[in-house]
C-alpha cells in the first residue's frame, strides 16, 4: 500500500472518516505518521476552542477578582484557586463523574460524557482559571497614568474598560498568556489518556501513538513522532501569538516594543 493511499485511508480516521479498522500488522512509518497526525486534529480542536471560549470567561473572572465588591471577588477567587490548585487528572475525573451522574437524571446531558464536549468543558474552565490569574496580575500593573488619562477624558464604565483598561491589560499579559496557550495544547494530550473514553478508536495523537507503541512494542518511534508534531504545533502557537503581540504593541515606538518582549512576564 502506497503512502498516499495510507493518507487517504487514515488521514481523517480520528474523526471517523476513512478505513474503519486501524492497521493491525506490518506497521509502516507512513501509517504511524499519518494516524498520529490525524489524532492531532483533536488536540488542535480542544486547544483552539477552549482557548477562545476560555478567553472571555477569563476576562470576566479577572475583572471580578479585581472588583472591590466582595460578592463578585470571592467566587472568582475560589474558582481560580480550585482550578489552579488541582491537577488536570483529578479535574477530568470529577468532570466525567459529574456528567455521568447528571446524565442519569436528565437526558439532555447525553453528549457531555463524550470527550468532544465533556473534556472541552473541563479544559475550558481550566484555562479560564489560569488565564484569569494572568489577566488579574496584568490588571494590577496597568500604569496609573493610563487610567488617569481615561478619567481626564471623562470616560467611564464600559468605554473606559473597552478602550483603555482592556487593551493595556492584554498587552501586559500577552507573553504570559502565550505560555498558557502552550501549556493548554500540551494538556489536551491527557484527554483520552486518563479522562474520557475513546469511542470507536477515534482518539487524539497520544491515543494513536500509544496504540502503535503497544502494537509494535517499541516506544522509540511513535512517541518521538508525537513530540515532533507538538513542537510544530508549539511553533505555530508562538507564531500566531507573536503576530497578535506585534499588533497589540503597534502604537509603541520601535525601541519600546523591543523592550516589551524582554519583560520577564512568564507567569503561568
Amino acid at each position: 500500500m502506497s503512502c498516499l493511499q495510507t493518507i487517504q485511508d487514515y488521514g481523517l480516521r480520528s474523526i471517523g472518516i476513512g478505513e474503519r479498522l486501524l492497521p493491525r500488522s506490518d506497521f509502516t512509518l507512513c501509517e504511524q505518521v499519518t494516524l498520529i497526525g490525524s489524532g492531532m486534529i483533536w488536540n488542535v480542536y480542544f486547544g483552539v476552542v477552549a482557548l477562545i471560549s476560555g478567553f472571555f470567561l477569563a476576562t470576566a473572572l479577572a475583572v471580578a477578582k479585581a472588583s472591590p465588591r466582595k460578592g463578585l471577588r470571592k467566587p472568582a477567587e475560589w474558582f481560580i484557586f480550585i482550578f489552579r490548585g488541582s491537577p488536570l487528572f483529578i479535574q477530568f475525573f470529577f468532570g466525567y463523574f459529574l456528567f455521568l451522574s447528571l446524565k442519569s437524571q436528565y437526558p439532555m446531558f447525553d453528549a457531555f460524557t463524550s470527550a468532544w464536549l465533556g473534556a472541552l468543558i473541563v479544559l475550558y474552565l481550566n484555562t479560564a482559571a489560569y488565564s484569569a490569574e494572568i489577566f488579574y496580575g496584568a490588571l494590577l500593573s496597568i500604569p496609573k497614568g493610563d487610567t488617569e488619562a481615561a478619567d481626564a477624558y471623562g470616560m467611564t464604565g464600559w468605554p473606559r474598560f473597552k478602550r483603555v483598561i482592556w487593551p493595556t491589560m492584554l498587552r501586559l499579559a500577552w507573553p504570559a498568556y502565550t505560555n498558557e496557550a502552550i501549556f493548554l495544547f500540551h494538556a489536551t494530550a491527557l484527554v483520552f489518556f486518563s479522562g474520557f473514553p475513546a469511542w470507536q478508536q477515534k482518539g487524539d495523537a497520544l491515543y494513536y501513538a500509544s496504540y502503535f507503541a503497544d502494537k509494535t512494542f517499541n516506544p522509540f518511534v511513535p512517541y518521538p513522532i508525537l513530540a515532533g508534531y507538538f513542537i510544530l504545533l508549539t511553533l505555530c502557537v508562538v507564531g500566531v501569538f507573536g503576530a497578535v503581540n506585534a499588533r497589540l504593541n503597534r502604537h509603541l515606538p520601535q525601541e519600546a516594543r523591543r523592550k516589551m518582549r524582554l519583560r520577564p512576564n512568564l507567569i503561568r
Partner: protein
Amino acid sequence: MFSFCTDPDTLDQARWLACYLTTGVHLSFYMSFLKVLGLLAVTAPVALGFGFAGAMVARSHIAPLSWIGKAYIAIVRGVPDIAFFLFFVIALDQAFEYLRHKALCPDWDEPIRQGRDFVVCQAAKLPLGNAPQWVHETYGFSLAVITFSIVFGAFAANVIFGAMRAVPRAQLETAEAYGMTRRQTFWRVLVPQMWVFALPGLSNLWMVLIKATPLLFLLGVEDIVYWARELGGTKTPRFTDYPHGDWRMWYFLGLLVFYLAFTRVSEIALDRIMGRLTLGQATAGGEAQRKGAVA
C-alpha cells in the same frame, strides 16, 4: 494494625473503617504522599540547577553553545511532558547501562541489541540484578527525578534567561565602570539581582510541578493518584477482607484537598520569599516596601 482487626466481618462501622484505613495497602498509600513530597523537594533544586545551567549556556557568547542551550529550551518546552515521560525514562536507563557496559565489560562479544532486546553484561546492569528491592526503587526514583528535572529545567531556563535580560542595563554598566570583569559582573551583580525578576515565573513553575506529580506513575513510581485509583476501585470479598463498591470519588476528593492545601501553603511561602527578595531592589515592589517603611 489494631488488635480488634482479626475478623473485619464482625466489626461496627467506625472500627471497620479504622481497620480498613490502616491495612498494608493504605500504609503504602500514605507512604506515597511522602514519596511525592520527597520527589518535589529533590526535583526543585535539581531542576533549578538545570535551568540555571541552561540559561547560562543559552546566553553564552560562543555561538554553538548558545544554540545548544536554546535548542534544549525550545525542544523540551515544545513537547507535552506526558509524551516525554513515555519513552524518555527507558531511553535514559538504556543510555546509562550502555555507558557502564562499555566501561565495565570491554571483552563482551555479544551484541547489545539482539533483535529488539537490549542486553548488557550482568555487571553493567543498573541496579545490579541481585540488588535488593529498595535499591531498584531508589534507582527508579532517581530516574524520575532526573526526567522531571530535565523537563522542568527547560522551563526554568526560559524563566531565568528572561530574568537575566531584565536586570536593568544601568546596573551592569555601573559594575563595568568599577572595573569588574565579565565574570565578576555576572556573579556579583547580575545573579543576585536576577532572582527577584525570576521568582514570579519560578513560583508558577513550582505550582505546575506540583500538579505534574500524577504523571509519576508513567515513570514507574507509585504515586498518590495510582494508589487512589487502585484502592478506590470496586473490591469483591474474594480478594480482600474489606470489600466495597466504587469509592474512587472519595479517594480523589482526598487528593483534591491535599493538592489544594499544598498549593495554598506554597503560595504563602512564596509570598514571603518574594517579600524578602524585593527588599532594597529597584523595582515597583521594592519602592512600595520603602514607602511602607517610611509611613
